[in-house]
């Protein structure tokens, strides 16, 4: 169905849909021109949108790409490396980012998935509306506000030190809404016939959810979790407030400092000496790669295992 060929004899009663006061006039040349113009504008919009993406990826790859080819990058930390010296790696930061992401997921996924189950399978009425509304608020909360809140609780009220676990708590707040929304979507896609079949066989509701509904939507739920992880890994604001950087390998969530890729970038971002600048872009490249892998994995899983409706 192509809309480009215009029927010039459109002497039909002028159609006046909502939002239009003009109807379709007879001046077909002007209309055709406008039509072509709109097509050009849309293609241009897409082309413009692709410019920053290509530009950013190009900058990161050309400036940071060769750091990743050095095997030391994946095995060494920055211990004892100064900004004048070439060398050292990012393994301390990669490790820190992965640990924090994992711990965050361990806390956020159960809450997020159960909230989604509540909203889809149980929730009716005012409580469900309230939950849905607060999830929306949580989606919109700036990461710095989440970090401030955890700071207020963790440091000001309880008097604890700034540690990696506090960062995880702030990240949990940011990950929950992503998990809830994506899980919710997937649960809604599960055909109701499956639930009814289970009920008809006398299976109680909770076993229906655990054994029928969730497994059917499983790949979609995993996708949501991976996308949530991708978001959390790139977050920097909570780290600035709650998770100071260190050049050493650190694995203790409750004591000392824990380096991560975003803070590694942040630490040296004002450097002008080439070795340090290279490492900043190398860390940026590593971070983008990790997030890309999660994104692609998430999309692949969702494409391969989407529930058949």
């Amino acid at each position, binding site marked *: 169905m192509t809309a480009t060929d215009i029927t010039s004899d459109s002497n039909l009663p002028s159609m006046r*849909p909502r939002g239009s006061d003009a109807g379709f006039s007879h001046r077909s040349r002007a209309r055709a021109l406008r039509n072509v113009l709109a097509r050009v504008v849309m293609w241009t919009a897409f082309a413009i949108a692709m410019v920053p993406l290509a530009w950013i990826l190009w900058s990161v790859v050309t400036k940071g790409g060769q750091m990743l080819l050095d095997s030391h990058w994946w095995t060494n930390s920055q211990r004892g490396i100064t900004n004048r010296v070439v060398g050292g790696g990012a393994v301390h930061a990669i490790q820190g980012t992965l640990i924090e992401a994992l711990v965050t997921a361990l806390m956020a996924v159960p809450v997020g998935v159960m909230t989604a189950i509540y909203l889809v399978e149980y929730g009716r009425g005012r409580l469900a509306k309230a939950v849905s509304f607060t999830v929306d608020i949580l989606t919109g909360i*700036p990461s710095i506000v989440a970090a401030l809140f955890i700071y207020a609780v963790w440091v000001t009220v309880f008097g604890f030190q700034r540690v990696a676990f506090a960062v995880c708590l702030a990240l949990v707040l940011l990950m*929950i809404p992503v998990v809830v929304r994506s899980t919710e979507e997937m649960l809604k896609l599960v055909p109701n016939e499956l639930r009814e079949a289970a009920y008809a066989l006398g299976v109680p509701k*909770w076993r229906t959810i655990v054994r029928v509904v969730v497994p059917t939507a499983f790949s979609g739920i995993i996708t949501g979790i991976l996308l949530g992880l991708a*978001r959390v890994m790139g977050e920097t604001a909570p780290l*600035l407030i709650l998770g100071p950087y260190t050049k050493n390998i650190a694995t203790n969530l409750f004591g000392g400092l824990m380096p991560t890729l975003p803070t590694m970038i942040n630490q040296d971002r004002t450097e002008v000496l080439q070795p340090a600048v290279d490492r900043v872009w190398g860390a940026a490249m590593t971070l983008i790669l990790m997030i890309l892998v999660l994104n692609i994995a998430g999309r692949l899983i969702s494409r391969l295992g989407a529930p058949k*409706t």
Partner: protein
Amino acid sequence: MPTSTGVSSVDELPGPSEHGPLQGDRAPTGQLGDRLFGGTARGAGLLVIVMVTLIAVFLLSQALPALAKDKVNFLTSTEWNVNGTPMQFGIANLLWVTVLSSAIAMLIAVPLGVGVALFITQYAPHWLSRPAATLVDLLAAVPSIVYGLWGLQVLGTHMNGIQSVLIRLFGWIPLFKDARIGAASTILTVGLVLSIMVLPIVSALSREVFAQTPTSHTDAALALGATRWEMIRTAVLPFGKPGVISASMLGLGRALGETVAVTVILSALAGSTPWSWSMFNGGETFASKIANNAAEFDSPSKAGAFMAAGLVLFLLTFVVNAIARVVIERRKAFIE
């Protein structure tokens, strides 16, 4: 489809809701397992409500004592001095920089995002539309610190030309006055970078709404002899307008709260710098003010001043998101 922006309209929109669980299956069986499992699910939902409430309560309880000690008007003062006694801090500067940078971002991102969404849903050849959507979504996967780094060190080096042209043409307007700040670190650069960050949010949600335009509407327009563009103008855009509004609001919420990219790019000004309306000025947004001074949270009253700024930011994003929600709810009611 889950989107990498974390934003979705599926539950707000009248999708194929016939496939959702029926109302009738609410009847509890009274089994222990059912009560436990249902209770846990309910508990998780309640936990989310509790968390959001706690955020508001804690920020408020920390901010109020500091606000009580504040010797200048919190809303209208441009001063920020939390080290002296008495403390003097006001948010006028922060509010202006936050609003201006977000406004620039929205001015660029909304038309562009709608254009991209129309391209993907209406114009792209079949083989291209899905990869195109994925590519635009990838913009949301770039971490904000990388946006900051790129904005300052790559995009920023090209801003000089644009800035001097704008100053030569419009320099007589206060908004375009030269503020003698490095062209890489201005509010304008921040606005541009924010527009790129917001673009995937606006386009992802608009795309979903445009794709749901009833075929009967589009077919009717085409059957009446509309061109492709006229069909879009009379069927797709009116149908998608509330979706576009709420997509823009969600994007705006993101732009207002963005921290790290702004912190990296924008040059913070010395306290004595006179007020300027210029978009070529430096300054600090709510978020970057807090991030820049994270090391200063050593005393509760100082931290309280920043909590107060955080609270205003929280309220701003809350209002913006609530508007988005209301718009989409009303549309839902209208369509059903």
